[in-house]
């Protein structure tokens, strides 16, 4: 029996609209075709009508989960053009926000993965754990999702109470090490769904240019925080976890280890947090000169690249180009699902932690 199964654009396993057309032989997937663009909002074009203050708030809306990554990227790109260096305290706060965001994104992903293999208890547990991080983010920034922390030249809000974050990290680490990771790695039914599923070989990963945890699970040790440090990452001491089996379990393990690494980075950043200003320059007098700036940031899902061109004598950019991690990771799904069971495809497509609002922009 040969089926052509449309998965999406509205499907319970996908949080966002996109379409995966599966050609199946019984319950085995032969090939897949991807359609995106259901979420296109024209943000790149809209950005050309916004000044350097507004564009930060606009870019925050590219993605709901990694909103901080996008504000950080646009601010860094504009800072490149205007040749502004934020004060050290601002750089540290940026690291802290980026790592908090990575934590909540990875824990959320673990929950979604649990849901996709029908493990609702794991889903609920992960979301309960994530709530601690969300509370901290809300206390720091005033909002759970769009933090509005970054501005050109620094950050908007200070971190007044590092002890609260440290307490949360302790709790989180305990939950991860004592509950989430052991359950995932000892539950027979969960393991049978992850091991050897959706394999992406190192060779294929290299040629597709995949980024982030997807690449690191396929044996490519790439991490921008290490290779091209931004903000204050140069002063942080951390490992880049790499797995070589390239299956869903490897991606799970990489993310689990990254959660622990993020906790360690947060501890270092909070203990070394330098005193001083949190931003430079007066926004009302700042002017962005003509020029071209790039910024690359390691988002929870992988590398984000911003290419910003600022025109002459104007307060709006003439071109903003955004490439998000899902955009480069998603074509890999086609190779991962070939030969997989139909029941595994939701998990496989989710294992790259796809984000379509980013991809469509």
């Amino acid at each position, binding site marked *: 029996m040969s*089926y052509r*199964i449309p998965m999406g654009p509205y*499907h*319970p*396993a996908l949080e966002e609209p996109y379409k995966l057309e599966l050609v199946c032989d019984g*319950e085995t997937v032969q090939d897949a075709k991807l359609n995106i663009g259901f979420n296109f909002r024209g943000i790149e074009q809209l950005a050309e009508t916004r000044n350097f203050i507004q564009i930060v708030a606009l870019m925050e809306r590219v993605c709901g989960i990694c909103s901080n990554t996008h504000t950080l990227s646009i601010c860094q790109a504009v800072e490149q053009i205007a040749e502004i260096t934020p004060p050290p305290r601002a750089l540290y706060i940026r690291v802290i926000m980026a790592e908090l965001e990575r934590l909540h994104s990875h824990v959320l992903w673990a929950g979604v993965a*649990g*849901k*996709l*293999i*029908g*493990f*609702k*208890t*794991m889903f*609920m*547990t992960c979301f*309960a754990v994530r709530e601690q991080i969300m509370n901290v983010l809300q206390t720091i920034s005033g909002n759970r999702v769009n933090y509005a922390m970054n501005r050109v030249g620094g950050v908007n809000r200070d971190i007044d109470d590092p002890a609260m974050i440290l307490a949360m990290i302790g709790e989180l680490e305990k939950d991860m090490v004592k509950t989430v990771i052991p359950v995932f790695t000892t*539950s027979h*039914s*969960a393991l*049978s*769904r992850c091991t050897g599923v959706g394999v992406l070989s190192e060779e294929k990963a290299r040629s597709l240019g995949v980024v982030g945890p997807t690449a690191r699970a396929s044996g490519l040790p790439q991490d921008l925080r290490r290779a091209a440090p931004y903000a204050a990452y140069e002063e942080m001491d951390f490992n880049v976890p790499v797995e070589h089996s390239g299956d869903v379990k490897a991606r799970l393990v990489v993310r689990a280890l990254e959660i622990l690494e993020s906790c360690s980075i947060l501890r270092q950043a909070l203990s070394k947090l330098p005193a001083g200003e949190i931003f430079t320059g007066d926004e009302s007098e700042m002017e962005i000169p003509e020029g071209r700036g790039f910024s690359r940031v390691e988002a929870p899902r992988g590398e984000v690249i911003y290419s910003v061109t600022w025109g002459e004598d104007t307060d709006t950019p003439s071109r903003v180009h955004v490439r998000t991690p899902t955009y480069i990771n998603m074509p890999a799904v086609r190779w991962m699902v070939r030969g997989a*069971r*139909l*029941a*595994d*495809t*939701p998990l496989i497509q989710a294992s790259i932690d796809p984000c379509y609002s980013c991809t469509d922009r």
Partner: protein
Amino acid sequence: MNATTALLRMLVFPGILFAAPAAWFFLWIERKAMAALQQRIGPPFMQPFFDFVKLMGKQVPPREGLGGFLMKLWPVLAVAASAGAVGLLPVIPRSGGFPGDLVLLLSLLELPSMFIIAAGFSSRSLWGELGSSREAILSVSYNVVFLMAIIGIAASQHTFSLQALAQSQGSPLRWLGVLAILICLPAKLHMNPFSVTNAEQEIYAGPMTEYTGHELALWELAHGMEWVAATGLVATLIAPPLANPWMAGALFVVLSVAVVLVLTIVAAATARLTIDDSVRFFWRCALAFAVLGVSSVLLMRIKL
């Protein structure tokens, strides 16, 4: 058992009039227990009933021809079959029964899953077809274990009457059979880890995808009654014989709820297996229980 008492049992107790509220109650217990295991509040007590009423009030899209007729027919038949299964349960001792009612109970328990398969195919939806073929494969596999367990129990007590089984004492073979039935129940009730038929993340609602309104409400009711009948069967098999009918009835309910809780804990603690893993599991189970069952029967024969 004459015609009047049979009719009363079917329609009043423990038949439809009792079975429908019991079904909602059991659905609520399952949902509430699941919520408690996941740090949630869970639904209010009347929620399954409200769900039913709400679904009853919804419009059903007109479906023409034989397919439409069949789609209306299957949920009604499913409710009838599971209500009949509940009606056969010997809740109160010496309330009647007939030789061989265990066989009827088994077939009535089996019918809803047949109707689900038929419903999935007659809905002509891709997801329905996928779900139905999964259900068909799964029911073939678990029924081997299920029937072997029941036949083993019946053979060990030399009777196919539920009443007699409820009155007799337990034996090792019987406990083995109860264990086998408990392993099959998640698959029968579409619970984790064998919830492949209605795996919403993969194939939406499976056979139920095209259903809505009162037809879906009837499916939900049938599902609840399956809960009552299946857990009731286990309760009948493990309950010690009691003379006082009130005590016996209370014990029956307590044991049924306990079975629901056990199944809920299993469902909360597991992820969903894929269809081929589920089938492999049941065939391994079948092999293990077959070896155990045959050897214990042989041992008993030798002892006798």
